């Protein structure tokens, strides 16, 4: 009979400290940094999704930015056209993006390695022009503007703080879910496929089922991330989801722990599932835009920003 893993006290301590830090961030930083940390949570979700696909089931994807685009546009179009509350669109975005990923996963079944990378690379490149083309639906280059998000229940929070808590909360929920998935039968099937497709098939694992499932799950995570990104910025246009986004996701997941552990069977055991991707998400979404974005934030905000980190 399977025993539940024993919780080690030092891990529990770390979790408590981590929880305090996470809850406390918006109280000690300014609005700009709080907003950046909300984006950290969003990218952590996208990275978790990519890690499920590439890190656990061994299928490389350069196209997860495209799945984020599907999620983001689902939310933006629903909110703009029907006026339903923004939070109801998050699960819809997950479903639509997940379905899209599932469909993409079907041809991907027959592609491995370099070929899958090529096809998903082409997917990432061709999404922005397609979004631009169908501009009656997507707003084209002008993008879609959504109403700004206000904290619910007249909570005494600024907009940034509310976004931060909401996005971090959703990231935590999805982390727990992914944690469960990789420790379940499904997660073991993913890893078996990654380590040897032949051996996995011989053990009775259905490649078709689990590989498309991995694509669908990964795309659903990316869809939630895209949806939250649209909600956070209350604006999106096709350039948000260009090739550089997909590449940044891959870079994030590689630096977060995929590249170092890839092929090893125990990278789920050392608790690295989200911690390192999250660290990298922090670096990616705060430092990189501050250093490289063409229209830099004003010098004052930059110095205060680097001063704090």
């Amino acid at each position, binding site marked *: 009979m399977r025993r539940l893993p024993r919780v080690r006290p030092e891990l529990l301590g770390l979790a408590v400290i981590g929880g305090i830090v996470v809850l406390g961030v918006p109280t000690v930083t300014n609005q700009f940094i709080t907003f950046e940390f909300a984006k950290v949570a969003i990218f952590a979700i996208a990275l978790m999704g990519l890690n499920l696909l590439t890190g656990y089931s061994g299928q490389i994807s350069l196209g997860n930015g495209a799945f984020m685009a599907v999620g983001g546009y689902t939310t933006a179009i629903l909110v703009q056209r029907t006026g339903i509350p923004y939070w109801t669109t998050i699960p819809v975005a997950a479903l639509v993006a997940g379905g899209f990923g599932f469909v993409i996963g079907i041809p991907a079944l027959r592609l491995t*390695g370099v070929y899958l990378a*090529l096809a998903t690379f082409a997917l990432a490149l061709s999404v922005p*022009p397609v979004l631009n*083309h169908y501009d009656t639906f997507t707003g084209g280059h002008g993008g879609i503007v959504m109403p700004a998000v206000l904290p619910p229940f007249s909570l005494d929070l600024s907009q940034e703080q509310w976004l931060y808590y909401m996005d971090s909360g959703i990231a935590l929920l999805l982390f727990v879910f992914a944690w469960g998935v990789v420790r379940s039968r499904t997660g073991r099937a993913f890893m078996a496929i990654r380590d040897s497709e032949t051996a996995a098939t011989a053990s009775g694992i259905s490649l078709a089922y689990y590989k498309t499932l991995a694509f669908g799950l990964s795309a659903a995570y990316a869809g939630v991330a895209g949806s939250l990104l649209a909600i956070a910025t209350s604006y999106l246009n096709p350039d948000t989801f260009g090739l550089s986004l997909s590449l940044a996701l891959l870079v994030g997941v590689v630096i977060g722990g995929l590249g170092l552990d890839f092929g090893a069977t125990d990278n789920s055991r050392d608790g690295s599932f989200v911690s390192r991707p999250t660290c990298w998400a922090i670096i990616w979404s705060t430092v990189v835009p501050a250093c490289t974005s063409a229209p830099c934030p004003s010098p004052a905000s930059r110095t205060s920003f680097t001063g704090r980190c």
Partner: protein
Amino acid sequence: MLAFIQQIVSGIATGGIYASLALGLVLIYRAMDVANFAQGEMATFSTFISYSLIEYAHFDFWSAFVVTILVSFGLGVAIERLLIRRFEGAPVLTLLIVTLGLFTIFNGVTGLIWGYVFKAYRGAFPSTPVQFGGLYLNTQDLGVFAVVLVMLLLLYLFFSRTKAGLAMRAASLYPDSSRLLGVRVGWMLALGWGLASTVGAVSGMLVAPIIFLDPNMMQAILLFAFAAAVLGGIESPLGAVIGGVAVGIVMALVGTYIPGGQDLRLAFGLVVIVVVLLVRPAGLFGRAAVKRV
């Protein structure tokens, strides 16, 4: 009908550009079984070097062309010797990520040095039409076509008539036996990277006068080059050339005859890649891969 033929002719010319970039991809794929995602960005970098030579050092186009080719060759060799070499025998995923890293680095460095403002690039050929039996042909298209043909001929002669070419072919097919026979396999790989970087640079310098010069200019062309290489069978140089011309023609027709085709060309590139891989994974000229477990 005339307009149709006109589109086909211009498709063949742009196809030549896709073909030369695809050839670079094939050279590296044959040597080490990896798609070099940095191929396009390396070509962009080289093209910017020639731009600087022309604009600031006042070279004429052809001397800048020759200098750029030499620099690109050196660059390709250096990348293989300093970086790629450390990953010899690494899993495909690792190599892919390394080339994607190169992609990001070259893209960023190009932007850092030359900026993101679109620049006009003065090419060798004027963009004037010449009449040819009722058809109006663009001098630029003809020039592009001639340069690509000369380059293919030189490459063919190199691989079939020189000792180094023979050694390179041997090293990519039978690395171990070649090593026993005294071929320096590592240097042959470096030579392959150098040549790939060179043909990429040529494609960049040919395409820059047609589209404007900017750090992202080769990304769409890289996609079409991938489509060309996959269509031709990713291991076959001849296939890459024919695939390039075919993709060029298809894209010219898509851009003209399908409403909104200009925006959807990239999506059509994706469709070509996926359909070829699903229907005939070995491409037109590749050998079907048989995997032993």
